[in-house]
């Protein structure tokens, strides 16, 4: 398939996944902010709940150029419908739709209609309307549109190369997002690791799990109190947990094994290396190594893989 098509499909699904992840994170942050607990530790402004969406998307300075201070209202405005923010939900849905429009021939009519419909609905929305109806309703809508696209994709798309690159985008974005979220949250959560059980900790941990649809999974698997080590294990190493790093890399590795051939091998090798670390990893070792260091290393590897995919598949140099 055309390199440009592969690239557009990859980014189409990355943007849709990003919109969903942002909606999940903002939703849980908003709900947490309604609780009567102070969670801000001195000297950790960057880990304040409303800063987390900005830190994860690398938009802290971009945000402060436009808004004077950190507040729930401003962050929501900025992350939900602000077209000037390239990572706002609005911008992500627009970018996904534009990629789809360029590649209508490579995706099914139902996929295009689903994405186009989403865009036509979000385009006229204004922030006051969203808050009047309740932001939660909006976030649910974003998640449902993402679920719908995924369902339509699985239900209608030919299992060809286009499908592979579409799926690759989803899992690359998700792995990146889960790792960043865990890393940022880890810093606020770490000081409490020794005295798990307090209300603040409970809500903090459960909020993290909920934002990744992992709360019920945790209960089912561990049937016990929520502890940081188990949360880390669930989100990093459990491959039956769909948003964990291991699960994402299972897909990424599998997809790249199919997409690579005798001329292009490096993406598969890199993915295999990352996958092996997760597949054979032990949480005790990771904690001993340092969770932050581990995740930083993981994000670096994912970044390298992302560049390799771009060079080998999307912008091949020949002629």
């Amino acid at each position, binding site marked *: *398939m055309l390199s*440009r098509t592969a690239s557009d499909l990859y980014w189409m699904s990355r943007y849709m996944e990003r919109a969903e992840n942002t909606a999940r994170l903002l939703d849980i942050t908003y709900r947490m902010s309604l609780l009567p607990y102070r969670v801000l530790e001195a000297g950790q402004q960057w880990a304040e709940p409303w800063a987390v969406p900005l830190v994860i998307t690398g938009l802290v300075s971009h945000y402060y150029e436009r808004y004077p201070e950190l507040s729930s209202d401003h962050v929501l405005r900025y992350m939900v419908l602000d077209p000037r923010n390239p990572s706002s939900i609005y911008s992500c849905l627009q970018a996904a739709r534009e990629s789809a429009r360029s590649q*209508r021939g490579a995706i099914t009519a139902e996929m295009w209609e689903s994405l186009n*419909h989403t865009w036509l609905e979000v385009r006229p929305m204004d922030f006051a309307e969203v808050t009047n109806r309740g932001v939660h309703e909006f976030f649910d809508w974003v998640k449902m549109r993402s679920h719908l696209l995924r369902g339509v994709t699985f239900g209608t798309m030919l299992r060809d190369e286009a499908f592979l690159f579409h799926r690759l985008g989803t899992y690359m974005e998700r792995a990146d997002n889960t790792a960043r979220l865990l890393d940022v949250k880890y810093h606020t959560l770490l000081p409490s690791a020794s005295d798990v059980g307090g209300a603040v900790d409970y809500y903090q941990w459960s909020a993290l799990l909920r934002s990744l649809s992992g709360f019920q999974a945790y209960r089912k698997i561990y049937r016990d109190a929520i502890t940081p080590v188990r949360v880390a294990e669930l989100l990093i190493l459990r491959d039956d947990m769909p948003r964990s790093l291991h699960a994402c890399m299972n897909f990424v590795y599998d997809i790249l094994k199919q997409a690579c*051939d005798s001329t292009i091998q490096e993406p598969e090798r890199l993915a295999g290396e990352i996958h092996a670390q997760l597949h054979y990893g032990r949480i005790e070792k990771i904690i001993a190594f340092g969770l932050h260091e581990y995740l930083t290393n993981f994000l670096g590897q994912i970044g390298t893989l992302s560049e390799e995919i771009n060079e080998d598949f999307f912008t091949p140099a020949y002629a």
Partner: protein
Amino acid sequence: MSEARFFNEMHLPDGAIRQHYQPFADWLADTPPDRIAQKRAEADIVFHRVGITFAVYGEESGTERLIPFDIVPRIIPASEWLMLAQGLRQRVKTLNAFLHDIYHDQEILKAGIIPPEKVTGNAQYRPEMDGVTVPKGIYSHVSGVDVVRAGQGEYYVLEDNLRVPSGVSYMLENRKMMMRLFPELFSKQPVAPVDHYPDLLLETLRSVAPEGVSNPTVVLLTPGSYNSAYFEHTFLAQQMGIELVEGQDLFVRENTVYMRTTKGPRRVDVIYRRIDDDFIDPLAFRKDSMLGVPGLFAAYRAGKVTLANAIGTGVADDKSVYPYVPELIRFYLGEAPILNNVHTYLLAKPEDRDYVLAHLAELVVKEVHGSGGYGMLIGPTASAAQREEFRQRIIAAPEKYIAQPTLSLSACPTFVESGVAPRHVDLRPFVLSGRNVTLVPGGLTRVALREGSLVVNSSQGGGTKDTWVLES
């Protein structure tokens, strides 16, 4: 313009329904107005959601608009279509023969049928194509011929479009929409299907692959998503199952065209290009083109790739060549023309010019190289100031203009704000030339939505209708 002055597609002069419209008229009378209103609204929603839109030049970039769709079909009886189809095939065969001739032996010039300055002196003539052999001698693989009815219902060819004619996707989508909204209508009358157009197109494109290529790779080359016809490009590529490429996706190495794929370079044999000649190769034509493929023209001349349509077809659909088409038919095919030409005054001729300047209020004046309804004067509806402006423009550069009598285009009942009223229509059938010359029964019917207006172009507020050719 009074009711009696134009041919009404549905009604006889006494107001009775024409026979081929009777089943539709009965249905319309029996269907509650709110059901129709609801269905018309549904059509708008679906067209938006499916994204059947076109970009409008001169408006904010990325502006997408719907082309208004009217639910009253334009119906053509079987016998009329038979004549039309024969006439269209005859015309397109002739124009292809003409193109082959003028880029080779130029017999037509030697025979003195058409003055050389209309051909080799024409800005649309591409000297680069002299002596270039194209597969099967076909230049215009996809031809859109604009046909109107005037007077008592006689058909006239208004113009030939042999460069990159567009609109076929609307023909197909309009049919899909009608079948979705009013499936019951299709059980009342045998409407000839058009859905196989993409298959015919692909077959046509494959049949003109370079010599020796047995399983050709066909691609559609688009200028990109900001082009007004981008929807059509994606639609056709998808329907044919071929790659939709932009210039940046292709490259030329040793006179062979390749596309960049995830599995390395892949050879391309036939390019259905929707980019104008000027922009197709910055090395051969416009150097500032960002849309084209450097080296493409050299590969084309070497016979390593087929372009559809060929380079240089514009000379055959030029308005200054149009008046000679009936003579061309006699010359190349030895047949009498089946379809009428509209009488055309060439303003470079002194006697024609004198007549036109004296009768500006009755005539339509067109720029020879204009298209899309831009740069024309419709005498009867123009203001005195507009007529005067054109008079000056004609005097300054007469060779740039032609004039034709104002045809009282036929009208078809159409939904407008005040209800159903007649509005003027034209018809663009699409003729495919490859191993055979074929066309699907029908075409794109465009309708001028403003009362009395004769301009049907979508860029000028025109709408479209489904076109039904009856099978019996």
